[in-house]
């Protein structure tokens, strides 16, 4: 199968996947016993039948479920995700404001995980069963065993309350105002507006949550890279390269590490989903105004349009990330396309 056909088939499968995602989100958020009327109007208003009927009618809750779903899909195709019951704004507007903050956080955390995890994994693989290997194994085990919300609180206690190195929670210092919204990425918007101070302040607020969020994926990537290196170091071509008299460093980096990176690409794609999960929790600790905080608020108030919006966006991001990973993999390793 050639590359274009492989990618084409994967892309053709996307719409079906996206419809499935909307259906699943819809079923999950509607086939539940909880009552959005009580959650959004309060017990007192929920006792008044007229108010309840008006509320149900306003949000389309009085129609049969299949009809509600079809109406939802029809609007979704036209770029309308409905209106959030609690913020009274279009869900697309809410998401447009909150998604960039989460992407900023997840992207920074991913960069940190790659920058730490890959070299550490290579080192641990090459120096197998030495102190370096033991430390990296222990470190990555601790990374995956630690509650991310707890690590966040401890980081705030140590670096903000005790040492004063890190700024307080939030995306910007309270004395600064957000730069004019262009992309809704605060750092980028600040740079576009030529506000160097704001950009620096936003970056300094990003460091601690991103470090905390990366703890888990550093562990996963280090272990994966180490295992992959051990596989590759036993291969014939590595021995051949050594036999040709190439230097140890050159063999490690040019021959072994490049090939060992392949399986790690997959893990990077998969751990992006984990990063989004972690971001939800990290955001609540660091008062980060992102998708996680929005998801939490809407889930607890049974704000169905908002919940569905979050679910669809997050799952789509995940599906697209995996598609990119598969394509990257197929480009890098022709054997995949044959399968």
């Amino acid at each position, binding site marked *: 199968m050639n590359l274009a056909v492989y990618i084409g088939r994967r892309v053709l499968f996307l719409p079906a996947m996206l419809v499935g995602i909307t259906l699943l989100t819809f079923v999950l958020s509607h086939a539940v016993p909880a009552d959005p009327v009580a959650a959004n109007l309060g017990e007192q208003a929920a006792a008044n039948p007229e108010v309840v009927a008006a509320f149900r009618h306003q949000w389309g809750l009085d129609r049969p479920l299949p009809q509600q779903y079809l109406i939802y899909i029809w609007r979704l195709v036209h770029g309308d995700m409905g209106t959030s019951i609690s913020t009274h704004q279009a869900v697309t507007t809410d998401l447009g404001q909150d998604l960039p903050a989460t992407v900023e956080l997840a992207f920074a955390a991913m960069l940190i995980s790659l920058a730490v995890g890959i070299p550490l994994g290579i080192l641990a693989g090459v120096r197998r069963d030495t102190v370096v290997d033991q430390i990296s194994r222990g470190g990555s085990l601790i990374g995956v065993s630690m*509650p991310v*919300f707890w690590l966040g609180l401890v980081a705030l206690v140590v670096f903000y309350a005790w040492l004063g190195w890190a700024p307080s929670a939030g995306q910007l210092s309270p004395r600064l105002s957000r730069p004019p919204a262009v992309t809704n990425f605060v750092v980028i918007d600040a740079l576009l507006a030529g506000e160097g101070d704001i950009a620096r302040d936003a970056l300094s607020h990003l460091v601690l949550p991103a470090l905390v969020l990366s703890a888990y994926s550093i562990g996963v990537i280090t272990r994966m890279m180490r295992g992959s290196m051990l596989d590759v170091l036993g291969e014939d071509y590595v021995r051949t390269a050594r036999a040709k008299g190439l230097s140890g460093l050159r063999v490690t980096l040019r021959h072994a590490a490049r090939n060992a990176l392949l399986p790690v690409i997959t893990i990077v794609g998969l751990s992006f989903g984990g990063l989004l999960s972690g971001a939800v929790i990290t955001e609540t600790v660091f008062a980060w105004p992102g998708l996680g905080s929005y998801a939490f608020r809407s889930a607890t108030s049974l704000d169905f349009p908002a*919940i569905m919006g979050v679910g669809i966006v997050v799952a789509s991001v995940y599906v697209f990330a995996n598609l990119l990973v598969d394509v990257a993999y197929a480009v890098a390793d022709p054997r995949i396309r044959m399968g």
Partner: protein
Amino acid sequence: MLPRPFVRSPLAVTALAVVAAWLVAAAAAPLIAPFPPLAQDIARRLAPPGPAHWLGTDPLGRDILSRVLYGARISIPVGMAAVALAVLIGTLVGSIAGGVGGSVDEVIMRVTDLMLAFPTVILAMIISAALGAGIRNAVIAIMVAWWPSYARFVRGLVLAARGREYVEAARAVGASTFRVFGRHILVNIVSPIVILGTLDVGHAILTFASLSFLGLGPPPQIPEWGSMIASGRDYLVQWWISTFPGVAILTLVLALNVVGDSLRDALDPRLRRL
């Protein structure tokens, strides 16, 4: 009973001792806890760790050591129950997919694809928010979010086992489909399923603590580690409120992960490199 490479590893034995200590703490909490977990002593609220309260007290003057010990009584059974339920459903669905095959398999696999597209915590958050906060609903949420990955794993095992000679032999002598499945396939795939499930208990405890931290677990007065950490959020200076329940989660989950890893290494040396 334990494999020899496991017993010879000091790290694995230490980890096993830590897990055992937590099990004892959970079982004996009413006997060893210095105070009742709900007893409030407003005069001593926010007391730092000291001789009277070894790990300090929380904003309501409750003893943190006692609450941490009682917390094990919730986290450990919840982690085990959530994994056991997810494994049970995953095994059932995965066996049907792998055993029946064809369009049934195709449909089941696409559904699991979809479920796996949702980050666990977000899926669990939606479910437990919709069902209402509480221990039972948090367990249900973790189970719903996790069964698809077990289903895929079991399906793979069933497919692999189906092609083996002993299964063909059983078919050839006229065993019924159910007998082949129950007596020949299931018994041969059960141990990898159990190992994977054991490896995941720590992860389940972490996920439950996260839901509880978000306010989707038991009510706040119940001594549960995740919600205890949440109660320390507004008291950064009184670091002990959230630090010690976190240390409890970290030590238990870390020990469970080390035990699981070492057990897997000892039972299957081919996996050692991971």
